Protein backbone atom coordinates (compact mmCIF):
# COMPACT_ATOMS: atom_id res chain seq x y z
CA UNK A 1 0.00 0.00 0.00
CA UNK A 2 1.23 3.47 -0.84
CA UNK A 3 2.54 5.63 1.97
CA UNK A 4 0.47 8.52 0.64
CA UNK A 5 -2.75 6.59 1.08
CA UNK A 6 -1.75 5.59 4.60
CA UNK A 7 -1.12 9.22 5.53
CA UNK A 8 -4.41 10.29 3.97
CA UNK A 9 -6.32 7.67 5.96
CA UNK A 10 -4.67 8.89 9.17
CA UNK A 11 -5.34 12.54 8.43
CA UNK A 12 -9.02 11.86 7.76
CA UNK A 13 -9.41 9.82 10.93
CA UNK A 14 -7.75 12.51 13.01
CA UNK A 15 -10.43 14.86 11.65
CA UNK A 16 -13.17 12.40 12.60
CA UNK A 17 -13.81 11.07 9.10
CA UNK A 18 -13.31 7.82 7.24
CA UNK A 19 -12.19 7.25 3.69
CA UNK A 20 -15.56 5.71 2.73
CA UNK A 21 -17.56 8.25 4.76
CA UNK A 22 -18.73 5.77 7.41
CA UNK A 23 -19.07 6.50 11.11
CA UNK A 24 -16.37 5.03 13.39
CA UNK A 25 -18.87 2.52 14.77
CA UNK A 26 -20.42 1.57 11.46
CA UNK A 27 -19.98 -1.66 9.51
CA UNK A 28 -19.88 -1.69 5.75
CA UNK A 29 -22.88 -3.22 3.94
CA UNK A 30 -23.20 -6.84 5.00
CA UNK A 31 -24.74 -9.59 2.91
CA UNK A 32 -24.99 -13.14 4.18
CA UNK A 33 -26.20 -16.16 2.24
CA UNK A 34 -26.31 -19.65 3.68
CA UNK A 35 -26.45 -23.10 2.08
CA UNK A 36 -24.47 -21.93 -0.92
CA UNK A 37 -22.41 -25.11 -1.38
CA UNK A 38 -24.51 -28.26 -1.86
CA UNK A 39 -21.71 -30.70 -1.16
CA UNK A 40 -20.88 -29.17 2.19
CA UNK A 41 -22.86 -30.05 5.32
CA UNK A 42 -23.12 -26.35 6.07
CA UNK A 43 -21.96 -23.25 4.24
CA UNK A 44 -22.17 -19.49 4.15
CA UNK A 45 -21.06 -16.60 2.00
CA UNK A 46 -20.32 -13.28 3.65
CA UNK A 47 -19.90 -10.03 1.78
CA UNK A 48 -18.59 -7.25 4.02
CA UNK A 49 -18.28 -4.32 1.65
CA UNK A 50 -15.93 -5.72 -0.98
CA UNK A 51 -14.52 -8.37 1.33
CA UNK A 52 -15.85 -11.75 0.26
CA UNK A 53 -15.50 -14.91 2.34
CA UNK A 54 -16.87 -18.38 1.75
CA UNK A 55 -17.08 -20.84 4.64
CA UNK A 56 -17.81 -24.56 4.38
CA UNK A 57 -18.49 -27.06 7.15
CA UNK A 58 -17.58 -30.69 6.49
CA UNK A 59 -18.26 -33.54 8.89
CA UNK A 60 -16.36 -36.79 9.29
CA UNK A 61 -16.02 -39.50 11.90
CA UNK A 62 -12.72 -39.95 13.73
CA UNK A 63 -11.17 -41.00 17.03
CA UNK A 64 -11.78 -38.30 19.68
CA UNK A 65 -8.88 -36.65 21.53
CA UNK A 66 -7.62 -38.71 24.49
CA UNK A 67 -8.25 -35.88 27.00
CA UNK A 68 -11.86 -35.42 25.83
CA UNK A 69 -12.88 -38.98 24.87
CA UNK A 70 -16.62 -38.22 24.99
CA UNK A 71 -16.61 -35.15 22.76
CA UNK A 72 -16.67 -34.32 19.08
CA UNK A 73 -13.76 -32.38 17.58
CA UNK A 74 -13.75 -28.86 16.12
CA UNK A 75 -11.12 -27.92 13.54
CA UNK A 76 -10.90 -24.49 11.92
CA UNK A 77 -8.72 -23.78 8.92
CA UNK A 78 -8.34 -20.65 6.80
CA UNK A 79 -7.01 -20.32 3.28
CA UNK A 80 -5.99 -16.96 1.92
CA UNK A 81 -6.34 -18.15 -1.64
CA UNK A 82 -4.39 -16.27 -4.32
CA UNK A 83 -7.57 -15.18 -6.12
CA UNK A 84 -8.28 -12.81 -3.22
CA UNK A 85 -5.30 -10.49 -3.34
CA UNK A 86 -2.03 -9.89 -5.20
CA UNK A 87 -0.27 -10.32 -1.86
CA UNK A 88 -1.60 -13.85 -1.25
CA UNK A 89 0.72 -16.57 -2.48
CA UNK A 90 -0.14 -20.18 -3.10
CA UNK A 91 1.48 -22.64 -0.75
CA UNK A 92 1.30 -23.70 2.86
CA UNK A 93 -0.58 -21.40 5.28
CA UNK A 94 1.44 -18.40 6.46
CA UNK A 95 1.23 -16.72 9.85
CA UNK A 96 -1.61 -14.46 8.74
CA UNK A 97 -3.91 -17.31 7.75
CA UNK A 98 -2.94 -19.36 10.80
CA UNK A 99 -3.74 -16.46 13.11
CA UNK A 100 -7.05 -15.86 11.30
CA UNK A 101 -8.08 -19.50 11.73
CA UNK A 102 -7.03 -19.56 15.35
CA UNK A 103 -8.96 -16.37 16.22
CA UNK A 104 -12.13 -17.76 14.62
CA UNK A 105 -11.54 -21.12 16.33
CA UNK A 106 -11.09 -19.52 19.75
CA UNK A 107 -14.31 -17.49 19.52
CA UNK A 108 -16.35 -20.59 18.70
CA UNK A 109 -14.55 -23.01 21.01
CA UNK A 110 -14.34 -20.84 24.12
CA UNK A 111 -18.00 -19.84 23.96
CA UNK A 112 -18.86 -23.57 24.27
CA UNK A 113 -21.51 -22.90 21.65
CA UNK A 114 -21.30 -26.39 20.14
CA UNK A 115 -22.63 -29.20 22.30
CA UNK A 116 -19.61 -31.38 21.58
CA UNK A 117 -20.72 -34.18 23.90
CA UNK A 118 -23.71 -34.82 21.65
CA UNK A 119 -21.27 -35.40 18.80
CA UNK A 120 -19.68 -38.43 20.41
CA UNK A 121 -20.73 -41.68 18.77
CA UNK A 122 -18.75 -44.16 20.89
CA UNK A 123 -16.70 -42.94 23.83
CA UNK A 124 -12.97 -42.98 23.16
CA UNK A 125 -13.50 -44.53 19.73
CA UNK A 126 -15.75 -42.54 17.44
CA UNK A 127 -16.86 -38.95 17.37
CA UNK A 128 -17.87 -36.41 14.76
CA UNK A 129 -15.20 -34.00 13.53
CA UNK A 130 -16.49 -30.60 12.49
CA UNK A 131 -14.15 -29.08 9.94
CA UNK A 132 -14.76 -25.40 9.34
CA UNK A 133 -12.88 -24.23 6.27
CA UNK A 134 -12.65 -20.52 5.56
CA UNK A 135 -11.94 -19.53 1.99
CA UNK A 136 -11.12 -15.85 1.56
CA UNK A 137 -12.12 -14.95 -2.01
CA UNK A 138 -11.75 -11.17 -2.08
CA UNK A 139 -9.67 -9.20 0.42
CA UNK A 140 -10.76 -5.67 1.23
CA UNK A 141 -9.96 -5.69 4.93
CA UNK A 142 -11.42 -7.08 8.17
CA UNK A 143 -11.10 -10.71 7.21
CA UNK A 144 -11.45 -11.71 10.86
CA UNK A 145 -15.00 -10.45 11.42
CA UNK A 146 -16.18 -11.64 8.00
CA UNK A 147 -14.70 -15.10 8.57
CA UNK A 148 -16.02 -15.47 12.11
CA UNK A 149 -19.49 -14.39 10.99
CA UNK A 150 -19.39 -16.78 8.04
CA UNK A 151 -18.18 -19.65 10.24
CA UNK A 152 -21.03 -19.12 12.68
CA UNK A 153 -23.63 -18.75 9.92
CA UNK A 154 -22.38 -21.96 8.30
CA UNK A 155 -22.43 -23.83 11.63
CA UNK A 156 -25.99 -22.71 12.33
CA UNK A 157 -27.25 -24.28 9.12
CA UNK A 158 -24.97 -27.34 9.13
CA UNK A 159 -26.58 -30.79 9.12
CA UNK A 160 -25.12 -34.05 10.39
CA UNK A 161 -24.86 -36.73 7.71
CA UNK A 162 -26.32 -40.18 8.26
CA UNK A 163 -23.87 -42.61 9.83
CA UNK A 164 -24.55 -46.23 8.97
CA UNK A 165 -22.48 -49.45 9.10
CA UNK A 166 -19.33 -47.53 10.13
CA UNK A 167 -19.73 -45.24 7.14
CA UNK A 168 -20.76 -41.64 6.63
CA UNK A 169 -23.54 -41.39 4.05
CA UNK A 170 -23.00 -37.95 2.56
CA UNK A 171 -26.04 -36.22 1.13
CA UNK A 172 -28.42 -37.85 3.62
CA UNK A 173 -28.90 -36.23 6.99
CA UNK A 174 -30.06 -37.08 10.47
CA UNK A 175 -30.27 -33.80 12.31
CA UNK A 176 -28.39 -30.57 12.82
CA UNK A 177 -25.23 -29.72 14.72
CA UNK A 178 -26.35 -28.94 18.29
CA UNK A 179 -25.66 -25.22 18.83
CA UNK A 180 -26.23 -23.58 22.22
CA UNK A 181 -24.98 -20.03 21.64
CA UNK A 182 -24.02 -17.64 18.86
CA UNK A 183 -20.63 -16.03 19.57
CA UNK A 184 -19.78 -13.03 17.39
CA UNK A 185 -16.31 -11.58 16.85
CA UNK A 186 -15.90 -7.84 16.42
CA UNK A 187 -12.52 -6.31 15.64
CA UNK A 188 -11.78 -2.83 16.92
CA UNK A 189 -8.98 -1.01 15.13
CA UNK A 190 -6.83 1.76 16.55
CA UNK A 191 -5.55 4.38 14.13
CA UNK A 192 -4.08 7.71 15.31
CA UNK A 193 -5.42 7.05 18.84
CA UNK A 194 -8.99 6.67 17.55
CA UNK A 195 -11.00 3.46 17.81
CA UNK A 196 -13.12 2.28 14.90
CA UNK A 197 -14.69 -0.94 13.67
CA UNK A 198 -14.62 -2.84 10.38
CA UNK A 199 -11.46 -1.30 8.95
CA UNK A 200 -11.21 -1.68 5.19
CA UNK A 201 -7.97 -2.59 3.45
CA UNK A 202 -6.78 1.01 3.09
CA UNK A 203 -7.46 1.67 6.75
CA UNK A 204 -5.66 -1.52 7.75
CA UNK A 205 -2.53 -0.16 6.06
CA UNK A 206 -2.55 2.66 8.62
CA UNK A 207 -3.42 0.41 11.56
CA UNK A 208 -1.56 0.86 14.84
CA UNK A 209 -3.22 -1.99 16.67
CA UNK A 210 -6.35 -4.09 16.54
CA UNK A 211 -8.25 -6.16 19.03
CA UNK A 212 -10.78 -8.86 18.26
CA UNK A 213 -13.29 -9.60 21.00
CA UNK A 214 -15.81 -12.40 20.68
CA UNK A 215 -18.96 -12.02 22.75
CA UNK A 216 -21.82 -14.44 23.44
CA UNK A 217 -25.60 -14.01 23.63
CA UNK A 218 -25.31 -13.12 27.29
CA UNK A 219 -23.12 -10.12 26.49
CA UNK A 220 -20.07 -11.78 28.06
CA UNK A 221 -16.61 -11.86 26.53
CA UNK A 222 -15.41 -15.30 25.40
CA UNK A 223 -12.18 -14.74 23.44
CA UNK A 224 -9.76 -11.90 22.83
CA UNK A 225 -6.83 -11.44 20.48
CA UNK A 226 -4.81 -8.26 20.21
CA UNK A 227 -2.78 -7.75 17.05
CA UNK A 228 -0.63 -5.13 15.38
CA UNK A 229 2.52 -3.43 16.57
CA UNK A 230 0.86 -0.72 18.67
CA UNK A 231 -0.68 -0.76 22.14
CA UNK A 232 -4.03 -0.25 23.90
CA UNK A 233 -4.54 1.58 27.20
CA UNK A 234 -6.90 0.17 29.85
CA UNK A 235 -9.52 2.76 28.91
CA UNK A 236 -9.26 1.86 25.23
CA UNK A 237 -9.63 -1.83 26.10
CA UNK A 238 -12.80 -1.12 28.07
CA UNK A 239 -14.18 0.95 25.19
CA UNK A 240 -13.31 -1.81 22.73
CA UNK A 241 -15.14 -4.35 24.90
CA UNK A 242 -18.25 -2.13 24.99
CA UNK A 243 -18.14 -1.67 21.22
CA UNK A 244 -17.75 -5.41 20.63
CA UNK A 245 -20.71 -6.26 22.84
CA UNK A 246 -22.91 -3.62 21.21
CA UNK A 247 -21.92 -4.38 17.62
CA UNK A 248 -21.94 -8.12 18.29
CA UNK A 249 -25.66 -7.85 18.96
CA UNK A 250 -26.22 -6.21 15.56
CA UNK A 251 -24.30 -8.91 13.72
CA UNK A 252 -25.93 -11.73 15.68
CA UNK A 253 -29.36 -10.50 14.57
CA UNK A 254 -28.27 -11.00 10.95
CA UNK A 255 -27.60 -14.73 11.26
CA UNK A 256 -29.98 -15.92 13.98
Amino acid sequence: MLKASENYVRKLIEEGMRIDERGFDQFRKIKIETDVIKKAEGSARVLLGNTHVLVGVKMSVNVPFPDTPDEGVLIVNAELVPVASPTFDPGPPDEESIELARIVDRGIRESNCIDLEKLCIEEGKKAWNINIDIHVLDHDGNLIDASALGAMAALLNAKIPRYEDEKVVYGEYEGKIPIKDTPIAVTVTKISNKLLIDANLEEESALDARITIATNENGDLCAIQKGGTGFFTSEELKKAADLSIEKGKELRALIK
Partner: protein
Amino acid sequence: MSKVGQPEKMIINGKRIDNRSFEEFRPITAEVGVLKRAEGSAIFKFGDTYALAAVYGPRTMHPKHMQDPQKAILRCRYSMAPFSTNERIRPGVSRRSVEISKVLNEALSNVVFFEDYPKTGIDVFVEILQADASTRCAGLNAASLALTEAGIPIRDLISSCSVGKVDNQIVLDIGGDEDQFGDVDISTATIGNEDKFVLLQMDGIITKEEFHILINLARKGCAEVYEKQKNALKEKYKTGEIDVES
Protein backbone atom coordinates in the same frame (compact mmCIF):
# COMPACT_ATOMS: atom_id res chain seq x y z
CA MET B 1 -17.06 -29.96 29.88
CA SER B 2 -15.46 -33.11 31.14
CA LYS B 3 -11.73 -33.45 31.13
CA VAL B 4 -9.67 -36.42 32.13
CA GLY B 5 -7.84 -35.92 35.42
CA GLN B 6 -9.74 -32.79 36.42
CA PRO B 7 -9.56 -32.16 40.18
CA GLU B 8 -12.90 -31.54 41.87
CA LYS B 9 -11.84 -28.21 43.33
CA MET B 10 -9.14 -25.84 42.18
CA ILE B 11 -9.43 -23.55 45.20
CA ILE B 12 -9.59 -24.86 48.76
CA ASN B 13 -9.84 -22.64 51.84
CA GLY B 14 -8.88 -19.51 49.97
CA LYS B 15 -5.73 -21.09 48.56
CA ARG B 16 -4.93 -22.23 45.07
CA ILE B 17 -3.94 -25.73 44.07
CA ASP B 18 -0.23 -24.97 44.59
CA ASN B 19 -0.95 -23.20 47.89
CA ARG B 20 -0.67 -19.68 46.49
CA SER B 21 -2.97 -16.79 47.34
CA PHE B 22 -5.05 -15.26 44.53
CA GLU B 23 -2.73 -12.41 43.58
CA GLU B 24 0.55 -14.16 44.19
CA PHE B 25 3.11 -15.11 41.56
CA ARG B 26 4.90 -18.42 41.54
CA PRO B 27 8.59 -17.92 42.41
CA ILE B 28 10.12 -15.74 39.69
CA THR B 29 13.71 -16.14 38.53
CA ALA B 30 15.31 -13.85 35.98
CA GLU B 31 18.90 -13.99 34.83
CA VAL B 32 20.65 -12.05 32.08
CA GLY B 33 23.63 -13.20 30.01
CA VAL B 34 23.33 -16.96 30.31
CA LEU B 35 24.70 -17.92 26.88
CA LYS B 36 28.17 -17.26 25.49
CA ARG B 37 27.65 -17.07 21.72
CA ALA B 38 24.46 -15.02 21.57
CA GLU B 39 24.68 -11.22 21.59
CA GLY B 40 22.04 -11.18 24.27
CA SER B 41 20.42 -13.90 26.32
CA ALA B 42 18.28 -14.38 29.39
CA ILE B 43 16.24 -16.90 31.27
CA PHE B 44 12.91 -16.16 32.90
CA LYS B 45 11.03 -18.57 35.13
CA PHE B 46 7.53 -18.55 36.61
CA GLY B 47 7.76 -21.53 38.95
CA ASP B 48 8.27 -24.57 36.73
CA THR B 49 7.87 -22.64 33.49
CA TYR B 50 11.35 -22.12 32.13
CA ALA B 51 11.97 -19.83 29.15
CA LEU B 52 15.30 -19.13 27.50
CA ALA B 53 15.73 -16.31 24.98
CA ALA B 54 18.66 -15.44 22.74
CA VAL B 55 19.18 -12.47 20.44
CA TYR B 56 21.38 -12.45 17.34
CA GLY B 57 21.93 -9.26 15.40
CA PRO B 58 21.49 -6.69 14.19
CA ARG B 59 23.05 -8.59 11.29
CA THR B 60 22.71 -8.50 7.53
CA MET B 61 19.19 -9.55 6.64
CA HIS B 62 18.90 -12.71 4.61
CA PRO B 63 17.10 -13.34 2.34
CA LYS B 64 18.06 -9.98 0.87
CA HIS B 65 14.65 -9.24 -0.64
CA MET B 66 13.32 -9.02 2.91
CA GLN B 67 15.69 -6.18 3.77
CA ASP B 68 14.21 -2.80 4.53
CA PRO B 69 16.43 0.11 3.46
CA GLN B 70 14.84 2.29 6.17
CA LYS B 71 14.93 0.05 9.20
CA ALA B 72 15.73 -3.25 10.84
CA ILE B 73 13.39 -6.23 10.65
CA LEU B 74 12.56 -8.11 13.83
CA ARG B 75 12.09 -11.83 13.59
CA CYS B 76 10.82 -13.75 16.56
CA ARG B 77 10.61 -17.51 16.88
CA TYR B 78 8.84 -19.17 19.79
CA SER B 79 9.43 -22.84 20.15
CA MET B 80 8.82 -25.50 22.77
CA ALA B 81 11.39 -28.19 23.48
CA PRO B 82 10.03 -31.70 22.77
CA PHE B 83 10.65 -32.68 26.41
CA SER B 84 9.04 -29.58 27.90
CA THR B 85 5.61 -31.13 28.49
CA ASN B 86 4.13 -34.44 29.70
CA GLU B 87 3.32 -35.54 26.19
CA ARG B 88 6.29 -35.07 23.89
CA ILE B 89 5.94 -32.18 21.47
CA ARG B 90 6.85 -32.88 17.88
CA PRO B 91 9.86 -30.73 17.01
CA GLY B 92 9.44 -27.96 14.47
CA VAL B 93 6.78 -25.35 13.90
CA SER B 94 3.15 -25.86 14.84
CA ARG B 95 0.16 -23.63 14.18
CA ARG B 96 0.26 -22.63 17.83
CA SER B 97 3.94 -21.68 17.75
CA VAL B 98 3.49 -19.67 14.53
CA GLU B 99 0.71 -17.65 16.15
CA ILE B 100 2.64 -17.08 19.37
CA SER B 101 5.77 -16.04 17.46
CA LYS B 102 3.64 -13.47 15.64
CA VAL B 103 2.12 -11.94 18.77
CA LEU B 104 5.49 -11.88 20.58
CA ASN B 105 7.04 -10.14 17.59
CA GLU B 106 4.26 -7.53 17.56
CA ALA B 107 4.65 -6.96 21.29
CA LEU B 108 8.43 -6.45 21.10
CA SER B 109 8.07 -4.21 18.02
CA ASN B 110 6.55 -1.54 20.28
CA VAL B 111 9.88 -0.75 21.89
CA VAL B 112 12.71 -1.41 19.43
CA PHE B 113 14.29 1.56 17.62
CA PHE B 114 14.28 -0.09 14.20
CA GLU B 115 15.42 3.05 12.36
CA ASP B 116 18.87 2.74 13.95
CA TYR B 117 19.77 -0.35 11.92
CA PRO B 118 18.61 -0.16 8.30
CA LYS B 119 18.90 -3.28 6.11
CA THR B 120 19.50 -5.55 9.09
CA GLY B 121 17.64 -8.32 10.80
CA ILE B 122 17.33 -8.81 14.54
CA ASP B 123 16.55 -12.40 15.48
CA VAL B 124 14.91 -13.26 18.76
CA PHE B 125 14.71 -16.93 19.62
CA VAL B 126 12.53 -18.04 22.50
CA GLU B 127 12.91 -21.62 23.68
CA ILE B 128 10.52 -23.02 26.25
CA LEU B 129 12.60 -25.65 28.02
CA GLN B 130 9.95 -26.57 30.55
CA ALA B 131 6.28 -25.71 30.25
CA ASP B 132 3.93 -25.24 33.17
CA ALA B 133 1.54 -22.61 31.76
CA SER B 134 2.14 -18.93 30.92
CA THR B 135 5.00 -19.92 28.62
CA ARG B 136 4.50 -17.04 26.17
CA CYS B 137 4.65 -14.57 29.08
CA ALA B 138 7.87 -16.03 30.43
CA GLY B 139 9.27 -16.12 26.87
CA LEU B 140 8.42 -12.48 26.27
CA ASN B 141 10.03 -11.42 29.56
CA ALA B 142 13.19 -13.34 28.69
CA ALA B 143 13.20 -11.92 25.15
CA SER B 144 13.04 -8.32 26.28
CA LEU B 145 15.91 -8.90 28.73
CA ALA B 146 17.94 -10.56 25.97
CA LEU B 147 17.32 -7.59 23.64
CA THR B 148 18.64 -5.32 26.37
CA GLU B 149 21.77 -7.36 26.88
CA ALA B 150 22.37 -7.39 23.13
CA GLY B 151 22.61 -3.60 23.37
CA ILE B 152 19.75 -2.99 21.00
CA PRO B 153 18.20 0.40 21.77
CA ILE B 154 14.71 -0.06 23.21
CA ARG B 155 12.27 2.43 24.71
CA ASP B 156 11.64 0.22 27.70
CA LEU B 157 11.34 -3.41 28.69
CA ILE B 158 8.26 -5.43 27.84
CA SER B 159 6.82 -7.01 30.97
CA SER B 160 4.36 -9.84 30.74
CA CYS B 161 2.18 -11.95 33.01
CA SER B 162 -0.98 -14.02 32.86
CA VAL B 163 -4.21 -13.51 34.75
CA GLY B 164 -7.39 -15.53 34.71
CA LYS B 165 -10.29 -17.14 36.44
CA VAL B 166 -10.14 -20.42 38.29
CA ASP B 167 -13.20 -21.87 40.06
CA ASN B 168 -14.86 -18.48 39.55
CA GLN B 169 -12.03 -16.70 41.36
CA ILE B 170 -9.88 -14.09 39.63
CA VAL B 171 -6.19 -14.96 39.99
CA LEU B 172 -2.74 -13.79 38.94
CA ASP B 173 -0.18 -15.99 37.13
CA ILE B 174 -1.97 -19.06 35.81
CA GLY B 175 0.15 -22.12 36.61
CA GLY B 176 0.14 -25.79 35.69
CA ASP B 177 -3.24 -27.40 36.27
CA GLU B 178 -4.94 -24.01 36.32
CA ASP B 179 -4.20 -23.66 32.64
CA GLN B 180 -5.69 -27.04 31.81
CA PHE B 181 -8.67 -27.00 34.15
CA GLY B 182 -9.25 -23.29 34.89
CA ASP B 183 -12.04 -21.25 33.32
CA VAL B 184 -10.20 -18.31 31.81
CA ASP B 185 -6.59 -17.71 30.79
CA ILE B 186 -5.38 -14.27 29.67
CA SER B 187 -1.86 -13.51 28.51
CA THR B 188 -0.96 -9.86 28.85
CA ALA B 189 2.09 -7.63 28.47
CA THR B 190 2.70 -3.94 28.95
CA ILE B 191 5.49 -1.54 28.06
CA GLY B 192 7.39 -1.41 31.36
CA ASN B 193 4.92 -0.48 34.09
CA GLU B 194 2.94 1.85 31.81
CA ASP B 195 -0.74 1.57 30.94
CA LYS B 196 0.08 0.33 27.45
CA PHE B 197 -1.01 -3.21 26.60
CA VAL B 198 1.03 -4.75 23.79
CA LEU B 199 -0.17 -8.33 24.26
CA LEU B 200 -3.66 -9.51 25.11
CA GLN B 201 -5.01 -12.95 24.37
CA MET B 202 -7.90 -14.55 26.16
CA ASP B 203 -9.59 -17.94 26.23
CA GLY B 204 -12.74 -18.45 28.29
CA ILE B 205 -15.90 -16.61 29.29
CA ILE B 206 -15.93 -13.50 31.51
CA THR B 207 -18.35 -10.66 32.13
CA LYS B 208 -17.56 -7.09 31.20
CA GLU B 209 -17.04 -6.22 34.87
CA GLU B 210 -14.63 -9.11 35.35
CA PHE B 211 -12.72 -7.94 32.29
CA HIS B 212 -12.18 -4.54 33.94
CA ILE B 213 -10.91 -6.20 37.14
CA LEU B 214 -8.62 -8.49 35.16
CA ILE B 215 -7.07 -5.57 33.27
CA ASN B 216 -6.25 -3.84 36.55
CA LEU B 217 -4.77 -7.01 38.00
CA ALA B 218 -2.72 -7.54 34.85
CA ARG B 219 -1.27 -4.04 35.18
CA LYS B 220 -0.22 -4.75 38.75
CA GLY B 221 1.27 -8.10 37.73
CA CYS B 222 3.22 -6.66 34.80
CA ALA B 223 4.57 -3.88 37.05
CA GLU B 224 5.80 -6.52 39.49
CA VAL B 225 7.50 -8.44 36.67
CA TYR B 226 9.07 -5.18 35.49
CA GLU B 227 10.79 -4.77 38.87
CA LYS B 228 12.11 -8.34 38.70
CA GLN B 229 13.48 -7.70 35.23
CA LYS B 230 15.19 -4.48 36.30
CA ASN B 231 16.73 -6.29 39.27
CA ALA B 232 18.07 -8.99 36.96
CA LEU B 233 19.71 -6.33 34.79
CA LYS B 234 21.17 -4.55 37.82
CA GLU B 235 22.51 -7.88 39.05
CA LYS B 236 24.20 -8.46 35.71
CA TYR B 237 25.78 -5.01 35.52
CA LYS B 238 26.36 -4.33 39.17
CA THR B 239 29.47 -2.32 39.91
CA GLY B 240 32.02 -2.94 42.58
CA GLU B 241 32.76 -6.51 41.64
CA ILE B 242 34.74 -5.80 38.50
CA ASP B 243 38.47 -6.30 38.89
CA VAL B 244 40.21 -3.10 37.91
CA GLU B 245 43.94 -3.32 37.51
CA SER B 246 45.66 -0.27 38.81
